[in-house]
Protein backbone atom coordinates (compact mmCIF):
# COMPACT_ATOMS: atom_id res chain seq x y z
CA UNK A 1 0.00 0.00 0.00
CA UNK A 2 1.36 3.37 -1.05
CA UNK A 3 0.23 6.65 0.43
CA UNK A 4 1.45 9.96 -0.90
CA UNK A 5 0.55 13.04 1.06
CA UNK A 6 0.91 16.63 -0.04
CA UNK A 7 3.59 16.10 -2.63
CA UNK A 8 4.94 19.32 -4.14
CA UNK A 9 7.67 19.53 -6.74
CA UNK A 10 8.98 22.74 -8.21
CA UNK A 11 11.52 23.36 -10.95
CA UNK A 12 12.79 26.80 -10.25
CA UNK A 13 9.84 29.15 -10.60
CA UNK A 14 7.59 26.44 -12.10
CA UNK A 15 5.64 24.36 -9.65
CA UNK A 16 4.95 21.18 -11.59
CA UNK A 17 3.15 19.28 -8.85
CA UNK A 18 1.29 20.95 -6.02
CA UNK A 19 0.05 19.21 -2.89
CA UNK A 20 -0.73 15.89 -4.51
CA UNK A 21 -2.20 13.26 -2.23
CA UNK A 22 -3.00 9.79 -3.50
CA UNK A 23 -2.90 6.09 -2.64
CA UNK A 24 -2.47 2.85 -4.46
CA UNK A 25 -3.56 -0.45 -3.03
CA UNK A 26 -1.80 -3.80 -3.47
CA UNK A 27 -3.45 -6.16 -5.89
CA UNK A 28 -4.87 -3.36 -8.00
CA UNK A 29 -3.86 -1.18 -10.90
CA UNK A 30 -4.36 2.48 -10.07
CA UNK A 31 -4.36 5.04 -12.85
CA UNK A 32 -3.10 8.59 -12.95
CA UNK A 33 -4.80 10.51 -15.75
CA UNK A 34 -4.26 13.97 -17.03
CA UNK A 35 -3.42 16.13 -19.96
CA UNK A 36 0.00 16.72 -21.37
CA UNK A 37 2.16 18.61 -18.96
CA UNK A 38 -0.30 18.09 -16.11
CA UNK A 39 2.45 16.74 -13.88
CA UNK A 40 1.95 12.98 -14.09
CA UNK A 41 5.54 12.07 -14.79
CA UNK A 42 6.74 14.52 -12.20
CA UNK A 43 4.48 12.90 -9.63
CA UNK A 44 6.04 9.49 -10.32
CA UNK A 45 9.55 10.89 -10.17
CA UNK A 46 8.65 12.70 -6.96
CA UNK A 47 7.49 9.47 -5.37
CA UNK A 48 10.64 7.72 -6.53
CA UNK A 49 12.92 10.43 -5.16
CA UNK A 50 14.37 11.44 -8.51
CA UNK A 51 13.34 15.10 -8.31
CA UNK A 52 13.69 17.38 -5.31
CA UNK A 53 10.46 17.56 -3.31
CA UNK A 54 9.57 20.75 -1.56
CA UNK A 55 6.95 18.98 0.51
CA UNK A 56 5.33 15.58 0.80
CA UNK A 57 5.26 12.37 2.75
CA UNK A 58 5.63 8.96 1.18
CA UNK A 59 4.42 5.96 3.13
CA UNK A 60 4.99 2.47 1.82
CA UNK A 61 3.27 -0.40 3.65
CA UNK A 62 2.93 1.70 6.74
CA UNK A 63 6.58 2.65 6.75
CA UNK A 64 7.48 6.28 6.25
CA UNK A 65 10.07 6.33 3.48
CA UNK A 66 10.01 10.06 2.83
CA UNK A 67 13.66 10.71 3.56
CA UNK A 68 14.93 7.63 1.76
CA UNK A 69 16.95 7.92 -1.39
CA UNK A 70 16.02 6.04 -4.52
CA UNK A 71 18.23 3.16 -3.63
CA UNK A 72 16.53 2.59 -0.32
CA UNK A 73 13.17 2.93 -2.01
CA UNK A 74 14.09 0.27 -4.55
CA UNK A 75 15.19 -1.98 -1.70
CA UNK A 76 11.87 -1.33 -0.02
CA UNK A 77 10.14 -2.66 -3.12
CA UNK A 78 9.50 0.39 -5.27
CA UNK A 79 10.24 0.21 -9.00
CA UNK A 80 9.89 2.77 -11.76
CA UNK A 81 9.61 2.34 -15.51
CA UNK A 82 10.36 5.87 -16.67
CA UNK A 83 9.17 7.85 -19.66
CA UNK A 84 11.26 7.31 -22.80
CA UNK A 85 12.49 3.85 -21.85
CA UNK A 86 16.00 4.81 -20.76
CA UNK A 87 17.59 1.47 -21.58
CA UNK A 88 21.36 1.16 -21.43
CA UNK A 89 21.96 1.11 -25.17
CA UNK A 90 25.37 -0.54 -25.12
CA UNK A 91 24.50 -3.24 -22.62
CA UNK A 92 22.95 -6.45 -23.83
CA UNK A 93 19.27 -6.94 -23.28
CA UNK A 94 20.02 -9.51 -20.60
CA UNK A 95 22.37 -7.16 -18.79
CA UNK A 96 19.72 -4.47 -18.94
CA UNK A 97 17.29 -6.80 -17.27
CA UNK A 98 19.86 -7.87 -14.68
CA UNK A 99 20.59 -4.27 -13.71
CA UNK A 100 16.89 -4.11 -12.95
CA UNK A 101 17.53 -6.69 -10.24
CA UNK A 102 20.65 -4.98 -8.91
CA UNK A 103 21.50 -5.93 -5.38
CA UNK A 104 19.67 -9.26 -5.42
CA UNK A 105 21.19 -12.71 -5.20
CA UNK A 106 22.33 -14.56 -8.27
CA UNK A 107 19.70 -17.26 -7.92
CA UNK A 108 16.88 -14.77 -7.59
CA UNK A 109 18.10 -12.89 -10.62
CA UNK A 110 18.17 -16.05 -12.74
CA UNK A 111 14.70 -17.00 -11.65
CA UNK A 112 13.23 -13.59 -12.48
CA UNK A 113 15.01 -13.63 -15.79
CA UNK A 114 13.34 -16.92 -16.59
CA UNK A 115 10.00 -15.40 -15.71
CA UNK A 116 10.54 -12.56 -18.18
CA UNK A 117 11.74 -14.87 -20.93
CA UNK A 118 8.72 -17.11 -20.45
CA UNK A 119 6.43 -14.17 -20.91
CA UNK A 120 8.21 -12.40 -23.78
CA UNK A 121 9.67 -15.11 -25.97
CA UNK A 122 11.45 -12.85 -28.46
CA UNK A 123 13.40 -11.17 -25.67
CA UNK A 124 15.05 -14.49 -24.89
CA UNK A 125 15.97 -14.99 -28.52
CA UNK A 126 17.71 -11.61 -28.69
CA UNK A 127 19.06 -11.44 -25.13
CA UNK A 128 22.69 -11.09 -26.16
CA UNK A 129 22.14 -8.10 -28.46
CA UNK A 130 22.86 -4.52 -27.40
CA UNK A 131 19.58 -3.00 -26.32
CA UNK A 132 20.18 0.19 -28.29
CA UNK A 133 19.73 -1.69 -31.53
CA UNK A 134 16.16 -2.69 -30.79
CA UNK A 135 13.21 -0.95 -32.36
CA UNK A 136 11.34 1.58 -30.26
CA UNK A 137 8.53 -0.76 -29.28
CA UNK A 138 10.91 -3.58 -28.50
CA UNK A 139 12.85 -1.28 -26.22
CA UNK A 140 9.65 -0.28 -24.46
CA UNK A 141 8.87 -3.92 -23.74
CA UNK A 142 12.35 -4.47 -22.33
CA UNK A 143 12.07 -1.35 -20.21
CA UNK A 144 8.86 -2.62 -18.64
CA UNK A 145 10.40 -6.01 -18.11
CA UNK A 146 13.42 -4.41 -16.48
CA UNK A 147 11.21 -2.59 -13.98
CA UNK A 148 9.57 -5.90 -13.11
CA UNK A 149 12.91 -7.62 -12.53
CA UNK A 150 13.17 -6.29 -8.99
CA UNK A 151 9.93 -8.09 -8.14
CA UNK A 152 8.51 -4.87 -6.75
CA UNK A 153 5.76 -4.46 -4.21
CA UNK A 154 4.84 -1.22 -5.94
CA UNK A 155 5.62 -0.44 -9.55
CA UNK A 156 5.29 2.97 -11.16
CA UNK A 157 4.82 2.90 -14.93
CA UNK A 158 4.99 6.01 -17.07
CA UNK A 159 3.05 5.54 -20.31
CA UNK A 160 4.07 1.91 -20.78
CA UNK A 161 1.99 1.53 -23.94
CA UNK A 162 3.77 4.23 -25.91
CA UNK A 163 5.27 2.83 -29.06
CA UNK A 164 3.78 -0.61 -28.54
CA UNK A 165 1.81 -2.27 -31.27
CA UNK A 166 -1.77 -3.21 -30.32
CA UNK A 167 -0.83 -6.84 -29.82
CA UNK A 168 2.09 -5.85 -27.64
CA UNK A 169 -0.15 -3.55 -25.61
CA UNK A 170 -2.35 -6.54 -24.92
CA UNK A 171 0.67 -8.56 -23.83
CA UNK A 172 1.88 -5.87 -21.50
CA UNK A 173 -1.61 -5.35 -20.16
CA UNK A 174 -1.77 -9.06 -19.46
CA UNK A 175 1.52 -8.92 -17.63
CA UNK A 176 0.44 -5.99 -15.47
CA UNK A 177 -2.82 -7.65 -14.58
CA UNK A 178 -0.90 -10.76 -13.58
CA UNK A 179 1.53 -9.02 -11.30
CA UNK A 180 -1.27 -7.03 -9.72
CA UNK A 181 -3.13 -10.23 -9.17
CA UNK A 182 -0.04 -11.57 -7.43
CA UNK A 183 -0.30 -8.75 -4.90
CA UNK A 184 1.74 -5.93 -6.30
CA UNK A 185 0.45 -2.40 -6.35
CA UNK A 186 0.61 -0.89 -9.83
CA UNK A 187 0.49 2.85 -10.39
CA UNK A 188 -0.06 3.58 -14.05
CA UNK A 189 0.26 6.81 -16.01
CA UNK A 190 -1.37 6.34 -19.38
CA UNK A 191 -2.74 8.27 -22.34
CA UNK A 192 -4.23 5.14 -23.82
CA UNK A 193 -7.77 5.42 -22.51
CA UNK A 194 -8.69 1.88 -23.59
CA UNK A 195 -5.83 0.41 -21.61
CA UNK A 196 -6.83 2.43 -18.57
CA UNK A 197 -10.39 1.21 -18.85
CA UNK A 198 -9.21 -2.37 -19.18
CA UNK A 199 -6.72 -2.39 -16.32
CA UNK A 200 -7.48 0.22 -13.73
CA UNK A 201 -9.96 -0.16 -10.95
CA UNK A 202 -9.55 3.36 -9.63
CA UNK A 203 -7.78 6.44 -10.94
CA UNK A 204 -6.63 9.89 -9.92
CA UNK A 205 -7.10 12.80 -12.25
CA UNK A 206 -4.46 15.48 -12.23
CA UNK A 207 -4.61 18.90 -13.87
CA UNK A 208 -2.09 21.71 -13.65
CA UNK A 209 -0.20 19.77 -11.01
CA UNK A 210 -3.15 19.22 -8.70
CA UNK A 211 -5.48 16.30 -8.08
CA UNK A 212 -8.92 17.26 -9.38
CA UNK A 213 -10.83 14.02 -9.13
CA UNK A 214 -10.64 10.49 -7.82
CA UNK A 215 -12.87 7.46 -8.18
CA UNK A 216 -13.38 4.26 -10.03
CA UNK A 217 -12.59 4.52 -13.67
CA UNK A 218 -16.19 3.92 -14.65
CA UNK A 219 -17.35 6.74 -12.37
CA UNK A 220 -14.76 9.13 -13.65
CA UNK A 221 -15.62 8.57 -17.26
CA UNK A 222 -19.32 8.69 -16.54
CA UNK A 223 -19.01 11.92 -14.58
CA UNK A 224 -16.96 13.49 -17.35
CA UNK A 225 -14.11 14.14 -14.94
CA UNK A 226 -11.63 12.79 -17.42
CA UNK A 227 -12.65 14.94 -20.30
CA UNK A 228 -12.84 17.95 -17.94
CA UNK A 229 -9.25 17.38 -17.07
CA UNK A 230 -8.41 17.16 -20.72
CA UNK A 231 -10.38 20.28 -21.44
CA UNK A 232 -8.32 22.16 -18.93
CA UNK A 233 -5.23 21.23 -20.81
CA UNK A 234 -2.82 23.59 -22.41
CA UNK A 235 0.03 22.85 -24.77
CA UNK A 236 1.79 25.56 -22.83
CA UNK A 237 2.86 24.32 -19.43
CA UNK A 238 1.45 26.42 -16.63
CA UNK A 239 4.09 29.03 -16.06
CA UNK A 240 3.88 30.49 -12.62
CA UNK A 241 7.14 32.32 -13.08
CA UNK A 242 6.01 35.31 -15.08
Amino acid at each position, binding site marked *: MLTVEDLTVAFGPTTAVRGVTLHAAPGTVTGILGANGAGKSTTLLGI*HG*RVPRSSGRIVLDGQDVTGHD*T*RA*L*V*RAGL*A*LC*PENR*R*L*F*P*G*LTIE*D*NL*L*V*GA*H*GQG*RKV*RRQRLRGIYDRFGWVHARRAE*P*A*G*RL*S*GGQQQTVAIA*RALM*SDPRLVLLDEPSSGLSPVAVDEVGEALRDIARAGTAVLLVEQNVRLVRQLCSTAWVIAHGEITAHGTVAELFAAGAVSDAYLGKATVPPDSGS
Partner: protein
Amino acid sequence: MSQVLVNGLFLGCLFAVVAVGLTLVYGVMEVPNFAHAGVIVLAAYATWAAGDAGAPFALAALAGIACGAVVSVLTEVLAYRWVVDKPAASPAVALGLLLILQNTALRGYGGAGRSLDTPYDTVLFRIGPVTLPGVKVALVLLAVLSLAALHLLLSRTSLGRAMRAVAQDREAAAMLGVPIRRQYTLAFLIAGLLGGVAAIAYAPTFQVSPYMADDVLLSAFVVVVLGGLGSVRGAVTGALVLGVAESLGSAYVSSAYQSAFGFLLLVLVLVRWPSGLRSTDARRVA
Protein backbone atom coordinates in the same frame (compact mmCIF):
# COMPACT_ATOMS: atom_id res chain seq x y z
CA MET B 1 61.62 -8.98 -36.49
CA SER B 2 60.43 -11.12 -33.61
CA GLN B 3 62.32 -8.88 -31.21
CA VAL B 4 60.45 -5.90 -32.64
CA LEU B 5 57.13 -7.65 -32.20
CA VAL B 6 57.99 -8.57 -28.64
CA ASN B 7 58.86 -4.97 -27.98
CA GLY B 8 55.52 -3.92 -29.45
CA LEU B 9 53.87 -6.34 -27.08
CA PHE B 10 55.60 -4.75 -24.11
CA LEU B 11 54.53 -1.32 -25.22
CA GLY B 12 51.03 -2.60 -25.83
CA CYS B 13 50.75 -4.03 -22.34
CA LEU B 14 51.85 -0.75 -20.82
CA PHE B 15 49.38 1.21 -22.93
CA ALA B 16 46.64 -1.24 -22.05
CA VAL B 17 47.03 -0.89 -18.30
CA VAL B 18 46.93 2.88 -18.52
CA ALA B 19 44.24 3.02 -21.18
CA VAL B 20 41.87 0.72 -19.37
CA GLY B 21 41.97 3.02 -16.37
CA LEU B 22 41.13 5.93 -18.62
CA THR B 23 38.36 4.17 -20.47
CA LEU B 24 36.77 2.99 -17.26
CA VAL B 25 36.67 6.48 -15.85
CA TYR B 26 35.54 7.92 -19.14
CA GLY B 27 32.86 5.32 -19.35
CA VAL B 28 31.43 5.99 -15.95
CA MET B 29 31.86 9.71 -15.72
CA GLU B 30 32.58 10.96 -19.23
CA VAL B 31 35.68 12.78 -18.10
CA PRO B 32 38.90 12.64 -20.11
CA ASN B 33 41.05 11.98 -17.09
CA PHE B 34 44.29 13.74 -17.87
CA ALA B 35 45.04 13.71 -14.19
CA HIS B 36 45.71 10.01 -14.56
CA ALA B 37 49.28 10.90 -15.54
CA GLY B 38 49.63 12.62 -12.19
CA VAL B 39 48.29 9.56 -10.40
CA ILE B 40 50.91 7.40 -12.07
CA VAL B 41 53.65 9.84 -11.16
CA LEU B 42 52.67 9.99 -7.51
CA ALA B 43 52.36 6.21 -7.34
CA ALA B 44 55.86 5.88 -8.78
CA TYR B 45 57.26 8.37 -6.29
CA ALA B 46 55.54 6.61 -3.43
CA THR B 47 57.19 3.37 -4.50
CA TRP B 48 60.52 5.08 -4.83
CA ALA B 49 60.21 6.81 -1.47
CA ALA B 50 59.23 3.61 0.29
CA GLY B 51 62.16 1.81 -1.32
CA ASP B 52 64.45 4.67 -0.41
CA ALA B 53 63.29 4.46 3.18
CA GLY B 54 64.37 0.84 3.21
CA ALA B 55 61.19 -1.07 2.47
CA PRO B 56 61.63 -4.28 0.47
CA PHE B 57 60.52 -3.93 -3.13
CA ALA B 58 57.29 -5.88 -2.81
CA LEU B 59 56.16 -3.69 0.03
CA ALA B 60 57.22 -0.52 -1.74
CA ALA B 61 55.29 -1.62 -4.81
CA LEU B 62 52.18 -2.20 -2.74
CA ALA B 63 52.60 1.21 -1.19
CA GLY B 64 52.83 2.71 -4.66
CA ILE B 65 49.72 0.95 -5.90
CA ALA B 66 47.84 1.99 -2.80
CA CYS B 67 48.99 5.55 -3.26
CA GLY B 68 47.75 5.50 -6.85
CA ALA B 69 44.37 4.28 -5.69
CA VAL B 70 44.07 6.88 -2.95
CA VAL B 71 45.11 9.79 -5.15
CA SER B 72 42.79 8.68 -7.93
CA VAL B 73 39.84 8.41 -5.58
CA LEU B 74 40.69 11.81 -4.14
CA THR B 75 40.54 13.41 -7.58
CA GLU B 76 37.05 12.02 -7.96
CA VAL B 77 35.77 12.94 -4.53
CA LEU B 78 37.28 16.40 -4.42
CA ALA B 79 36.91 17.54 -8.01
CA TYR B 80 35.34 15.41 -10.71
CA ARG B 81 32.27 14.57 -8.67
CA TRP B 82 31.22 18.19 -8.76
CA VAL B 83 31.25 18.55 -12.51
CA VAL B 84 29.66 15.22 -13.30
CA ASP B 85 26.71 16.79 -15.05
CA LYS B 86 28.77 19.41 -16.88
CA PRO B 87 30.84 17.34 -19.27
CA ALA B 88 32.03 20.47 -21.09
CA ALA B 89 33.66 21.67 -17.89
CA SER B 90 35.51 18.48 -17.06
CA PRO B 91 38.57 18.98 -19.28
CA ALA B 92 39.47 22.17 -17.44
CA VAL B 93 39.18 20.33 -14.15
CA ALA B 94 41.29 17.50 -15.52
CA LEU B 95 43.99 19.92 -16.59
CA GLY B 96 43.89 21.63 -13.22
CA LEU B 97 44.27 18.32 -11.43
CA LEU B 98 47.13 17.28 -13.66
CA LEU B 99 48.96 20.50 -12.88
CA ILE B 100 48.39 20.02 -9.18
CA LEU B 101 49.50 16.41 -9.05
CA GLN B 102 52.52 16.76 -11.30
CA ASN B 103 53.78 19.81 -9.51
CA THR B 104 53.21 18.27 -6.13
CA ALA B 105 55.69 15.64 -7.25
CA LEU B 106 57.97 18.36 -8.57
CA ARG B 107 57.84 20.23 -5.27
CA GLY B 108 58.40 17.12 -3.24
CA TYR B 109 61.15 15.48 -5.22
CA GLY B 110 62.52 17.98 -7.71
CA GLY B 111 62.67 17.73 -11.47
CA ALA B 112 65.56 15.29 -11.73
CA GLY B 113 64.77 11.68 -12.53
CA ARG B 114 65.02 9.02 -9.83
CA SER B 115 65.75 5.44 -10.41
CA LEU B 116 63.49 2.70 -9.22
CA ASP B 117 65.32 -0.50 -8.40
CA THR B 118 63.73 -3.88 -8.56
CA PRO B 119 65.00 -7.30 -7.57
CA TYR B 120 64.52 -8.45 -11.17
CA ASP B 121 66.41 -5.54 -12.72
CA THR B 122 69.24 -7.63 -14.01
CA VAL B 123 67.40 -10.85 -14.75
CA LEU B 124 67.51 -11.68 -18.43
CA PHE B 125 65.62 -14.35 -20.37
CA ARG B 126 66.72 -15.54 -23.76
CA ILE B 127 64.44 -17.41 -26.12
CA GLY B 128 66.20 -18.09 -29.40
CA PRO B 129 67.10 -14.74 -30.91
CA VAL B 130 64.83 -12.83 -28.58
CA THR B 131 66.03 -11.40 -25.29
CA LEU B 132 63.51 -10.61 -22.60
CA PRO B 133 64.66 -8.28 -19.84
CA GLY B 134 63.23 -9.21 -16.46
CA VAL B 135 61.59 -5.81 -15.97
CA LYS B 136 59.64 -6.17 -19.16
CA VAL B 137 58.55 -9.70 -18.43
CA ALA B 138 57.33 -8.43 -15.09
CA LEU B 139 55.43 -5.68 -16.87
CA VAL B 140 53.65 -8.14 -19.13
CA LEU B 141 52.79 -10.42 -16.23
CA LEU B 142 51.44 -7.57 -14.15
CA ALA B 143 49.44 -6.24 -17.07
CA VAL B 144 47.92 -9.57 -17.96
CA LEU B 145 47.05 -10.42 -14.37
CA SER B 146 45.48 -7.09 -13.52
CA LEU B 147 43.54 -6.88 -16.77
CA ALA B 148 42.27 -10.41 -16.44
CA ALA B 149 41.09 -9.64 -12.92
CA LEU B 150 39.37 -6.52 -14.15
CA HIS B 151 37.75 -8.38 -17.00
CA LEU B 152 36.30 -10.90 -14.61
CA LEU B 153 35.10 -8.15 -12.32
CA LEU B 154 33.36 -6.27 -15.10
CA SER B 155 31.86 -9.14 -17.02
CA ARG B 156 31.05 -11.63 -14.29
CA THR B 157 29.92 -9.59 -11.34
CA SER B 158 26.86 -7.45 -10.87
CA LEU B 159 29.21 -4.75 -9.65
CA GLY B 160 30.78 -4.63 -13.08
CA ARG B 161 27.42 -4.65 -14.78
CA ALA B 162 26.22 -1.79 -12.62
CA MET B 163 29.34 0.12 -13.48
CA ARG B 164 28.75 -0.35 -17.18
CA ALA B 165 25.13 0.68 -16.69
CA VAL B 166 26.13 3.90 -14.97
CA ALA B 167 28.51 4.50 -17.83
CA GLN B 168 25.65 4.31 -20.29
CA ASP B 169 22.98 6.31 -18.52
CA ARG B 170 23.57 7.42 -14.98
CA GLU B 171 20.07 8.73 -14.39
CA ALA B 172 18.48 5.50 -15.54
CA ALA B 173 20.87 3.54 -13.36
CA ALA B 174 19.96 5.70 -10.40
CA MET B 175 16.27 5.07 -11.06
CA LEU B 176 16.94 1.36 -10.78
CA GLY B 177 18.56 1.82 -7.40
CA VAL B 178 22.18 1.54 -8.47
CA PRO B 179 24.32 3.63 -6.12
CA ILE B 180 26.01 5.78 -8.73
CA ARG B 181 28.43 7.68 -6.54
CA ARG B 182 29.83 4.41 -5.36
CA GLN B 183 30.36 3.40 -8.99
CA TYR B 184 32.28 6.59 -9.67
CA THR B 185 34.51 5.99 -6.70
CA LEU B 186 34.95 2.40 -7.70
CA ALA B 187 35.94 3.33 -11.23
CA PHE B 188 38.52 5.78 -9.96
CA LEU B 189 39.73 3.26 -7.43
CA ILE B 190 40.30 0.65 -10.12
CA ALA B 191 41.87 3.20 -12.43
CA GLY B 192 44.16 4.29 -9.61
CA LEU B 193 45.17 0.71 -8.85
CA LEU B 194 45.93 0.16 -12.51
CA GLY B 195 47.83 3.44 -12.61
CA GLY B 196 49.89 2.20 -9.69
CA VAL B 197 50.53 -1.07 -11.48
CA ALA B 198 51.58 0.84 -14.58
CA ALA B 199 53.92 2.97 -12.52
CA ILE B 200 55.75 0.12 -10.87
CA ALA B 201 55.72 -1.86 -14.08
CA TYR B 202 57.51 0.66 -16.21
CA ALA B 203 59.27 3.06 -13.89
CA PRO B 204 62.15 0.55 -13.40
CA THR B 205 62.96 0.60 -17.11
CA PHE B 206 62.91 4.35 -17.24
CA GLN B 207 63.01 6.60 -14.25
CA VAL B 208 60.69 8.32 -11.88
CA SER B 209 60.08 11.95 -12.78
CA PRO B 210 57.16 14.37 -12.69
CA TYR B 211 56.75 14.08 -16.46
CA MET B 212 57.30 10.36 -16.78
CA ALA B 213 53.71 9.60 -17.76
CA ASP B 214 53.02 12.34 -20.30
CA ASP B 215 53.87 10.36 -23.40
CA VAL B 216 52.29 7.18 -22.15
CA LEU B 217 49.12 9.04 -21.31
CA LEU B 218 48.92 10.48 -24.79
CA SER B 219 49.31 7.05 -26.32
CA ALA B 220 46.80 5.65 -23.88
CA PHE B 221 44.25 8.20 -24.99
CA VAL B 222 44.79 7.18 -28.55
CA VAL B 223 44.30 3.60 -27.48
CA VAL B 224 41.05 4.51 -25.79
CA VAL B 225 39.78 6.12 -28.97
CA LEU B 226 41.04 3.30 -31.15
CA GLY B 227 39.26 0.78 -29.02
CA GLY B 228 36.11 2.81 -28.60
CA LEU B 229 35.53 5.03 -25.60
CA GLY B 230 34.32 3.08 -22.63
CA SER B 231 35.18 -0.34 -24.02
CA VAL B 232 37.65 -2.28 -21.91
CA ARG B 233 38.12 -5.04 -24.43
CA GLY B 234 38.53 -2.43 -27.14
CA ALA B 235 41.18 -0.70 -25.09
CA VAL B 236 43.19 -3.88 -24.72
CA THR B 237 42.93 -4.64 -28.43
CA GLY B 238 43.75 -1.05 -29.32
CA ALA B 239 46.75 -1.05 -26.99
CA LEU B 240 48.30 -4.13 -28.52
CA VAL B 241 47.66 -2.88 -32.04
CA LEU B 242 49.15 0.51 -31.24
CA GLY B 243 52.14 -0.96 -29.45
CA VAL B 244 53.00 -3.22 -32.36
CA ALA B 245 52.37 -0.51 -34.96
CA GLU B 246 54.60 1.97 -33.17
CA SER B 247 57.27 -0.61 -32.63
CA LEU B 248 57.27 -1.70 -36.27
CA GLY B 249 57.25 1.87 -37.52
CA SER B 250 60.06 2.90 -35.27
CA ALA B 251 62.17 -0.12 -36.12
CA TYR B 252 61.72 -0.02 -39.88
CA VAL B 253 60.96 3.59 -40.77
CA SER B 254 62.01 6.19 -38.21
CA SER B 255 62.22 5.94 -34.49
CA ALA B 256 62.03 9.67 -34.02
CA TYR B 257 58.53 9.62 -35.44
CA GLN B 258 57.41 6.63 -33.39
CA SER B 259 54.20 8.21 -32.16
CA ALA B 260 53.40 9.48 -35.63
CA PHE B 261 52.79 5.87 -36.63
CA GLY B 262 50.22 5.70 -33.90
CA PHE B 263 48.64 8.78 -35.42
CA LEU B 264 48.55 7.19 -38.84
CA LEU B 265 46.88 4.16 -37.38
CA LEU B 266 44.39 6.34 -35.55
CA VAL B 267 43.55 8.15 -38.76
CA LEU B 268 43.05 4.91 -40.67
CA VAL B 269 40.83 3.46 -37.98
CA LEU B 270 38.73 6.57 -37.49
CA VAL B 271 38.18 7.05 -41.19
CA ARG B 272 36.74 3.56 -41.35
CA TRP B 273 35.11 3.41 -37.88
CA PRO B 274 34.45 6.94 -36.62
CA SER B 275 33.69 5.70 -33.14
CA GLY B 276 36.49 3.24 -32.67
CA LEU B 277 36.96 -0.47 -33.17
CA ARG B 278 34.57 -1.57 -30.47
CA SER B 279 32.24 1.25 -29.80
CA THR B 280 29.95 0.83 -26.84
CA ASP B 281 27.62 3.40 -28.29
CA ALA B 282 24.73 1.44 -29.70
CA ARG B 283 22.36 4.37 -29.98
CA ARG B 284 20.43 4.52 -33.21
CA VAL B 285 19.32 7.54 -35.14
CA ALA B 286 15.62 6.84 -35.20
